[in-house]
């Protein structure tokens, strides 16, 4: 019941309407009972087709009746000649078309048309393509019809070239046609495949698309279809699986492997650890949450207890040789095939060691993936959009695209401009202010990771207006993290920071400690001036074995001695500071 305006009517009008409806209902009810009784008696005949057509004409979503018609046709197929059947199905198509003219959004009607076309002796697919053209002229966004078109195209083997041409004609008719842009995104990888390109589309074809979509947003810079498509063209390809970071520690007998993509160690997936080429048997791996979910980070250490039905437990057997040098290799195995691996060498004196996948110096690991295109093409693209920005100073789509292009081209050179433009976006598009804030937070961390040389051990992000800490999975070696004086509201995914010893989250908007659980090395946690109000919100900290020092001064919870007492009971052995020092 969409888009039906409520109209105030006079008593007279209401009475007339009521009478009319009563009459309609009488006919409707009589027809429906007749159909159901005929079906019950197994009378799947032409009369059933006739009566059910009357009902479906006014109520095409009555799905059961379409089913009855299908059953009837399958029954009649057994006795009728091919010519008779063809004639019947042709008239069914005419009936369906008349239904679609009244309601072109009924799932049941469109599906029934598929059934008829697949069942009739001589389907005329060209006629169906014409019908789609016709309906898409009337409503170019009707997704039912677009889907039916794809069905027809598949059955009739219409070449994708022809369909790409069709989508172009729709776009030339009206750039604001999201359905057509969508269709192009599906056709291009089929027509111009290039497995080496991140999106699987050849560069030449992508360049043409850039041109086309530019025409679109120069014509109507406020139309979002063009911009969504443009962002796709700038988009990154899928990452390949690899090891981001591999850490071993003799002190805790632990190994941590961080991958680029999510995995779940289980029946078909395993991480094999070899010490001096000898495979370690019976290792157990868990993710930072110790949940059954997929994760990019997997951890194995000695002494990890696995409870099975809360009765039995087994311990993990990881044991790194003491006082001798050794080489250790971690390999990801999926369905018996090695996917990727990482290797490191422990000297006699090494307590722990890590290896982080190298990236070319002076470039960004994030912007490289951002675009499929060469930088000179992106540079030209930036130039033309900057020109557009001169005319369209307050257009958020233009400003956002400038930001994304600059990020893809050179996030360091353009850092100031990117940040300034993000500030402008917050003002221009207030409804999505938090989207831009998060985007800014993401860019800041990406730049930090890109500009750091070697392993990142200490991170100072104090007072950066951060709303969120992105990419914690890329920071497994950080020991000291200062995030004080930001706008962070939660610590989700902080438990990827497996080396973290000291965390300063003071003066933020943190309401609970979710995400801090199972941090094996966390000793000091500063949470001054946040929004923590209940002992329960500290529960995750119970699983941090080394936590000694917790500062919560200036939080609402400090106002109640009872609550503080409960908190002390919850976190025995932790020094809890209530006053700022």
């Amino acid at each position, binding site marked *: 019941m969409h888009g039906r305006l409520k109209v105030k009517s006079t008593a007279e009008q209401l009475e007339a309407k009521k009478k009319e409806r009563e009459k309609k209902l009488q006919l409707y009810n009589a027809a429906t009972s007749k159909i159901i009784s005929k079906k019950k008696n197994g009378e799947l005949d032409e009369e059933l087709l006739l009566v059910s057509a009357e009902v479906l004409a006014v109520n095409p979503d009555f799905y059961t009746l379409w089913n009855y018609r299908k059953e009837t046709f399958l029954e009649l197929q057994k006795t009728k000649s091919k010519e008779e059947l063809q004639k019947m199905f042709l008239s069914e198509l005419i009936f369906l078309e008349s239904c679609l003219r009244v309601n072109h959004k009924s799932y049941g009607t469109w599906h029934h048309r598929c059934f008829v076309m697949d069942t009739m002796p001589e389907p005329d697919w060209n006629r169906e393509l014409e019908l789609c053209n016709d309906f898409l002229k009337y409503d170019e966004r009707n997704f039912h019809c677009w889907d039916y078109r794809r069905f027809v195209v598949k059955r009739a083997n219409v070449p994708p070239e022809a369909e790409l041409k069709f989508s172009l004609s729709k776009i030339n008719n009206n750039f604001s046609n999201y*359905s057509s842009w*969508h269709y192009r995104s599906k056709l291009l990888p089929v027509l111009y495949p290039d497995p080496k390109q991140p999106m699987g589309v050849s560069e030449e074809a992508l360049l043409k698309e850039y041109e086309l979509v530019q025409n679109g947003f120069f014509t109507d810079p406020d139309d*979002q279809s063009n911009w969504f498509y443009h962002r796709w063209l700038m988009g990154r390809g899928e990452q390949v699986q690899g090891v981001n970071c591999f850490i071993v520690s003799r002190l805790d007998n632990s190994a941590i492997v961080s991958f680029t993509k999510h995995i779940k160690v289980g029946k078909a997936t395993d991480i094999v650890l070899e010490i001096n080429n000898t495979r370690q048997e019976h290792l157990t791996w868990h993710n930072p949450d110790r949940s059954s979910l997929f994760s990019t980070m997997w951890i194995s250490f000695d002494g990890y207890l696995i409870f099975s039905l809360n009765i039995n437990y087994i311990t993990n057997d990881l044991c790194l040789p003491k006082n001798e040098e050794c080489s250790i290799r971690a390999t990801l195995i999926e369905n018996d095939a090695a996917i990727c691996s990482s290797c490191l060498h422990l000297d006699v004196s090494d307590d722990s060691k890590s290896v982080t996948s190298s990236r070319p110096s002076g470039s960004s690991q994030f912007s490289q993936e951002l675009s499929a295109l060469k930088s000179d093409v992106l540079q030209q693209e930036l130039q033309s959009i900057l020109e557009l920005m001169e005319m369209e100073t307050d257009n958020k789509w233009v400003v956002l695209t400038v930001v994304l292009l600059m990020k893809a081209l050179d996030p360091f050179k353009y850092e100031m401009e990117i940040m300034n433009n993000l500030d402008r976006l917050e003002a221009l598009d207030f409804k999505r202010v938090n989207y831009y804030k998060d985007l800014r937070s993401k860019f800041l961390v990406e730049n930090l990771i890109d500009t750091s040389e070697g392993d990142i051990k200490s991170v100072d992000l104090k007072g950066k207006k951060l709303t969120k800490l992105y990419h914690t999975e890329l920071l497994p070696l950080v020991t000291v993290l200062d995030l004080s004086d930001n706008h962070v509201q939660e610590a989700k995914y902080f438990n990827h920071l497996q080396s973290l010893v000291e965390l300063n989250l003071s003066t933020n908007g943190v309401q609970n400690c979710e995400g801090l659980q199972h941090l094996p090395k966390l000793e000091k946690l500063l949470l001054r001036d946040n929004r923590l109000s209940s002992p329960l919100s500290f529960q995750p900290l119970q699983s941090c074995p080394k936590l000694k020092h917790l500062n919560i001064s200036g939080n609402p919870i400090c106002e109640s001695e009872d609550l503080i007492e409960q908190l002390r009971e919850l976190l025995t052995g932790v020094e809890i500071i209530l006053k700022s020092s």
Partner: protein
Amino acid sequence: MAAPIKDIVIPDSAPTSLMLQKHADYIAAYGNRKDDYEYIMTEFLRMNGMYWGLTAMALAGQLDRMDKSEVVDFIHKCQHESGGFSCSIGHDPHLLSTLSAVQILTLFDALDSVDTAATVKWVKSLQQPDGSFFGDRWGEVDSRFSFVAVACLALLKSLDQVDVDKAVEFVLSCMNFDGAFGCRPGSESHSGQVYCCVGLLSITGRLHHVNADQLGWWLCERQLPSGGLNGRPEKLPDVCYSWWVLSSLKIIDRLHWIDKEKLVSFILACQDEETGGFADRPGDMVDPFHTVFGLAGLSLLGDTSVQPVNPVFCMPEAVIRKLNIQLQYL
């Protein structure tokens, strides 16, 4: 030539506060109009309609006003030998009505009044080699049906009965250039479909396949100047999308990317002060469908006079929690 943004203007006279009691009264009375034209013409939706109405009552905290035994008896009569449920007595079974039936029985804690083993078997029989699900024996495929099947089995604690990996694979093949999802591989993105696919990935613990920033951006761009949300680019706002878009944003932890206050005003403006109930847009006719999604949307937006709603199942959070169903949220 610039196309004007499709949107509405909220009239000054539109309601600005929640009339919860009126909505509960509207729903409670809805089932009493069995000779009504509207009621008869929507019989093919009865089971879904009952789920919408009963969930609305539960969210209003007034489920006890409804006649449980009458409802359970009706559902019982809608179960077919195959195990599936139809929308009304004598109609054909379909996955859409089957989930509604299972949801209602869960709400009433009355699953033992039907043959759930048969239901599980029937749902399982509808899975195809590519992982997709037929809606019924006539073979329509839609990512909605994938969600419905998986949600139904999760409520019946029988998710292990189908090939979950394949089901996930199919849903992922419906993902598009904008990070959102369509009905079938190749179909255009649509917020209703996004809700279904993201919901399925939450139930199966596979949300890592979603590019949350990309999808979140597409979803938050559904908000129009009026504050309402549309289902696809260049479409009008509609209260039901306060549910499809909002619950998806909630599951992928991007709910803060829209202007909550403006959306609340839009939803409230869709109430009918005279009759109770919500319409799709201010000034239109109300119905139970928009009423439940209006209330559920307000619940997600933090209105504490409405019971907390579960974003995956669109049922009271307390009911889902009691069942101890594991759901993933980013």
